[in-house]
């Protein structure tokens, strides 16, 4: 009997664990280690953050789902990996610390034959002064990164709307809280959902809503922008985003690294090195992501963290980390099997793998501050990668240790994204976008690096309906209800 341990139960970890359990059957064991008792469909947190959905609608308890699927569930956080075992045992293991099940604080060594690191990110609020401490959100701004954060955000937003109704003008600032953030899409969705809710509340004229981000142009989204078929023209997402922002009366600041947050004010540095300030009454700033801080030790107990993890704390996989400068970047730098080069039974998926380099053009201010989006590894790609990794491991367990690995490179993978711009059965809008490949392949597609025929987008009410249907569809899938495996990632 082999044991697969999956660290993390987010989109990609959950996908990997559930498919592995299905394919391996009861002959082998799948263990999921995740500090959260509940699974969260993160894309819908946006709607929780504007009070249009409850926390309960976007989460569910993992324990009963895993019990039905025959997956061993440990509500714990992973602390360290010992891929060579320890003195007296060659069996690799992971040390976990329980966060629930009445065993809070106790640790356990969980042995494994294969391990998937799908821990997702540490929300690194601490990287920006005043944005928070470590992975904890600070007092000045809100966040929609977790369901709890989103619930808090909705509460604060309701207060701001009340003030506007009482005749008090309010400043709202939404965007990214650091020069190296990813997930601009979430902030993009949030700002338009807020605008929609404020307009619905009849106080749009009392709100000054503003966007701030680290993108070098509006509509970069961390993927260097994409093409939208809009108004009959195949135009860049920059033009599309600018017209959407203008139409909704939202000015923007781009190329900004937020370096300090105070009560009611952010300080930022721009790409040309100039410093600026922006006041706010309500602000949601996405934090930068870092690895969760897993440690690794060899058989002798020596720290080998820097050998298997990149400096940002994400697990090294089969990527080319030595590509160097922008002009040398190639699509082939991106990993395809997500296997750790040192330990062949160790894999990563979702945000937890270390990308070789950004997708957008790297930029820095004259002061040397890097300002530019880091590559997104969320949503559809993370699910696809999770499934491919699970497939590889299942083959190795069932067919032998030499079974070929499955590949899922972001340079050969398309992604579809539906970004909500307001929730409502008849007045909702969402931008539906597809992009192929996620990582531009300049050799294969000269020019933009992308296949323009597969990279397009539209905005409208239908997009909102799709987004809402996807919400139910993916929760259905994650709950492993009948036919779940047929629903794509």
């Amino acid at each position, binding site marked *: 009997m082999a044991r697969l341990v999956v660290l993390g139960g987010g989109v990609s970890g959950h996908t990997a664990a559930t498919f592995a359990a299905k394919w391996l059957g009861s002959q082998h064991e799948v263990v999921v280690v995740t500090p959260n008792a509940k699974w969260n469909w993160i894309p819908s947190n946006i709607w929780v953050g504007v009070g249009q959905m409850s926390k309960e609608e976007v989460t569910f308890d993992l324990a009963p789902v895993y019990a039905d699927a025959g997956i061993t569930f440990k509500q714990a956080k992973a602390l360290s990996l010992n891929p060579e075992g320890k003195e007296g045992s060659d069996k690799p293991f992971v040390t976990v610390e329980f966060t629930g099940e009445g065993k809070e604080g106790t640790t356990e060594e969980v042995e494994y034959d294969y391990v998937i690191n799908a821990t997702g990110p540490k929300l690194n609020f601490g990287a920006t002064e005043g944005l928070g401490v470590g992975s904890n959100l600070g007092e000045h701004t809100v966040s929609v990164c977790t369901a709890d954060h989103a619930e808090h955000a909705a509460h604060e937003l309701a207060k701001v709307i009340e003030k506007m109704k009482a005749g008090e003008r309010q400043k709202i600032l939404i965007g990214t809280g650091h020069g190296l953030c990813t997930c601009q899409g979430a902030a993009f969705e949030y700002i338009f959902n807020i605008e929609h809710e404020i307009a619905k509340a009849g106080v749009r004229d009392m709100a000054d809503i503003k966007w701030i981000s680290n993108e*070098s*142009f509006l509509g970069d989204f961390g993927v*260097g*922008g994409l*093409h939208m*078929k*809009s*108004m*009959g*023209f*195949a*135009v*860049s997402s*920059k*033009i599309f985003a600018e*017209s959407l922002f203008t139409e909704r009366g939202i*000015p*923007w*600041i*781009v*190329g*900004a690294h937020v370096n300090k947050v105070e009560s009611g004010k952010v300080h930022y540095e*721009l*790409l*040309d*090195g*100039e410093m*600026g300030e922006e006041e706010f009454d309500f602000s949601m700033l996405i934090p930068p992501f870092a690895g969760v801080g897993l440690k690794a030790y060899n058989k002798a107990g020596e720290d080998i963290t820097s050998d298997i993890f990149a400096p940002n704390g994400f697990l090294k996989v089969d990527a080319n980390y030595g590509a160097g400068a*922008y*002009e040398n*970047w190639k699509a082939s730098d991106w990993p395809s099997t997500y296997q750790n080069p040192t330990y062949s039974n160790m894999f990563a998926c979702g945000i937890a793998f270390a990308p070789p380099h950004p997708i957008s*053009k790297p*930029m*820095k201010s*004259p002061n040397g501050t890097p300002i530019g989006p880091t590559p997104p590894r969320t949503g559809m790609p993370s699910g696809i990668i999770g499934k491919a990794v699970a497939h590889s491991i299942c083959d190795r367990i069932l067919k032998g240790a030499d079974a070929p690995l499955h590949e899922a490179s972001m340079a050969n993978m398309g992604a579809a994204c539906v970004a909500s711009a307001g929730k409502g059965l008849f007045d909702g809008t969402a931008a539906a976008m597809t992009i192929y490949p996620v990582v531009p392949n*300049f050799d294969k597609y*000269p*020019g*933009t*690096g992308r*296949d*323009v*025929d*597969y990279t*397009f987008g539209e905005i409208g009410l239908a997009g909102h309906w799709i987004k809402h249907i996807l919400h139910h569809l993916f929760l259905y899938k994650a709950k492993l209800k009948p036919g779940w495996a047929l629903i794509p990632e």
Partner: protein
Amino acid sequence: MVKEIVTYPTPPSTEYSTDVRVFDENIVSLIDNMKETIEANNLDALTAFQIGNQFNVVVIKEDNGSYLELINPRLFSTKGQVTTEEKTAYFPGLSAKVTRHESVSVVYQDREGNDLSLKATGDRSILLQRKIDYTFGSTYLQKLDKDEKARFELKLEYGSNIAVSESCPTVFQRDKLLKVINVAMIAMVILLFISFFVSDENALVTMWSYQAYTALAVLILNIIYFFYAQYEGKKYTSCTSCQIGNIIGTTVISLFKLTLLFLASYLLI
């Protein structure tokens, strides 16, 4: 070398927005071509996109005759709004009222790849905004407000939809197959109708076998249609998804009709 400037109604290329990554002689010669094209056409500025090149390069002719070269320009830190009448080489002889930022900051690189920045206000700011929009594949048409766009479109001989790189055809080869299927099914209906007036047992048996063979043929044709149509649908990649939906729908409807006909024939003949 003087290059031809792409003008309406030629659709702008769909290859654009490519950041320069290697600063070599190709970029130098591109910039030289742009300068010569500016001179030959007496322009104030040009983007590589306007001469059909994918790279993010803008060349501006200064009042003193010198040139400002902006590679990979990005525009940020905008202030104020101003609406002016603008002209661009893509729409020769036309102009439109465009709302732009009053002042902008731009970061860019020079031909050696050094990072530089500049600030601009007034006409220069507007020029930079128009040119940088070109590097993202856009003319000022996308910047017009609704009323101005409607006014401007009246001046365009072919409307503003010429720029779609690939339009989805409305007539396909597969429709011929569909026609055959429909004709066969009409034949089945006629045969069914005739059977009501035939009382001879033997003739009815023959008719039933004709009916069964035709039904089988229609079923096979439907299967062929289903797969061929998908093959054809994939040739027009920009509208594959709606085509596939259409094909599945058409096949399901056709098979439903066939099933009804077959059942009716089975029960009635």
